[in-house]
């Protein structure tokens, strides 16, 4: 048979250089400064925890997955993000189990990349929060030797970790919620506060997120709508109930930056329409404010994103754009 003179393919005909592995590895690259910041603040413990979650995610993908999605970097991203949400002093065996859960039951069980409903890293984190509540809320204090481990990282599996009492601190949100104490804004922006590995350095996260947004690897509408909702709501509440924290504190404390920039924007689990992205972001922002101010937990970003993840199929359906050329009735 004669070879056709023209290549016949289905649309799209204009192809960009972007591919799944390229996008994923760029995101991994943009996470490097965040990892460096966490190593700067939390020392060798940060390296250990992040390396463990990444290794467990990649291994799970390798042994339970198809194998063909191993090199696209998505499991690496999940592993790094999961590590960044954990406290520095976490025993490594817990981190490992979290990674296995995140990839195994958060992603592979749905059929792998692109088909999962919930953000795997956050699902793994929520699972760990339910399974090891105490270890997950033991925050190391800053200060002391950089080389020292920030907790009992090397605890033997299923043994009670030694809690070094002099080294446990509190997160700014915890201080706010349970003691009504404020943390200085500069500390929050540069990250010299207690908290999970990757959430403290807000400025670094914003810069990396800005880079990804410029490359269009994340939908800028989602973080922007989260920030606007959180800022407006919390400032309004602050005006009427002065005991509640103000907008700047809410924006720069806790996992809001990390969650809004790197987790809520996960391409698989966020809405596919622009209008849906605004709704999704606003929902996350509102839930964050409600859970932080009135919930039993000091931090609610993880749960807010997971809850909105579960609404994404609904948002996608409700915000289908009108087909070009059809009337208003046809869209419904």
């Amino acid at each position: 048979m004669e070879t056709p003179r023209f290549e016949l393919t289905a649309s799209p005909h204009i192809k960009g250089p972007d591919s799944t592995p390229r996008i994923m590895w760029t995101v991994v690259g943009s996470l490097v400064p965040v990892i460096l910041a966490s190593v700067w603040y939390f020392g060798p413990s940060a390296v250990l925890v992040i390396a463990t979650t990444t290794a467990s995610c990649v291994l799970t993908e390798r042994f339970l997955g198809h194998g063909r999605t191993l090199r696209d970097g998505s499991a690496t991203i999940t592993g790094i993000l999961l590590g960044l949400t954990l406290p520095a002093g976490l025993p490594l065996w817990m981190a490992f189990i979290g990674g296995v859960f995140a990839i195994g039951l958060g992603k592979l069980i749905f059929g792998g990349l692109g088909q999962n409903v919930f953000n795997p890293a956050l699902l793994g984190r929520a699972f760990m929060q339910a399974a090891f509540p105490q270890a997950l809320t033991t925050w190391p204090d800053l200060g002391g030797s950089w080389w020292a481990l920030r907790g009992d990282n090397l605890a033997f599996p299923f043994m009670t970790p030694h809690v070094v009492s002099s080294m446990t601190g509190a997160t700014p949100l915890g201080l706010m919620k349970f003691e009504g104490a404020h943390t200085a804004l500069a500390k929050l922006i540069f990250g010299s506060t207690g908290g999970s590995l990757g959430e403290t350095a807000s400025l670094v996260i914003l810069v990396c997120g800005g880079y990804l947004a410029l490359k269009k690897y994340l939908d800028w509408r989602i973080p922007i709508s989260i920030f606007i909702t959180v800022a407006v709501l919390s400032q309004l509440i602050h005006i009427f109930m002065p005991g509640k924290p103000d907008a700047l504190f809410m924006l720069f404390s806790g996992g809001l930056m990390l969650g809004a920039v790197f987790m809520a924007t996960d391409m698989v689990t966020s809405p596919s329409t622009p209008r849906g992205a605004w709704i999704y972001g606003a929902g996350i922002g509102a839930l964050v404010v409600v859970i932080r101010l009135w919930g039993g937990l000091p931090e609610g970003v993880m749960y807010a994103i997971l809850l909105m993840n579960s609404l994404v199929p609904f948002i996608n359906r409700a915000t289908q754009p009108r087909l070009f050329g059809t009337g208003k009735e046809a869209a419904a």
Partner: protein
Amino acid sequence: MRDLFWIFVSSMLVNNFTLVLFLGLCPFLGVSAKVATAVRMGMADIFVMVITSVTVSALNAWVLPHAPYLKIIAFIVVIASLVQIVEMVIRKVSPTLFRELGIYLPLITTNCAILGLALLQTSKGYGFTEGLVYAVGSGLGLTLALVLMASIRETVELASVPSIARNMGLVLIIAGSLSLAFMGFAGLFSS
């Protein structure tokens, strides 16, 4: 007023019958394949729950003080007969809905969510108004869980799920994930 609001939020989100208390799982797993059916099931649930709550308030006020040992039997008998009446009405009014709900409407009769509502309302000492708010909140919570589950199930219908997790396996995983997400509401408005 504040108490009523708290009861409403608590029964709908914080102590969601399906996702936190794990009551009423049969309709949650059985009728959650399509959003439209899930919504109708939820409506039926709200309806039966409101009837239950009113009945329980009446029983608690007039019958059970004289015969406390009849509590569970009275609840089961009264609720079962009420659901039978509801079933007859639905069969007459909307045969489509009746067909679509299939076995699940009779299942509501023996549904733990309904008896759970009756017993919880009694043990929490809710009166008529509080009970009504509690029933509507719980029913809406059930509907919310059902609809969320159904919309997710419709989405993952085309996913290439590994054979070990086809159908019910994946549904249980999703249910667990939703339950994890709902843990975020723990302690909401309690202080």
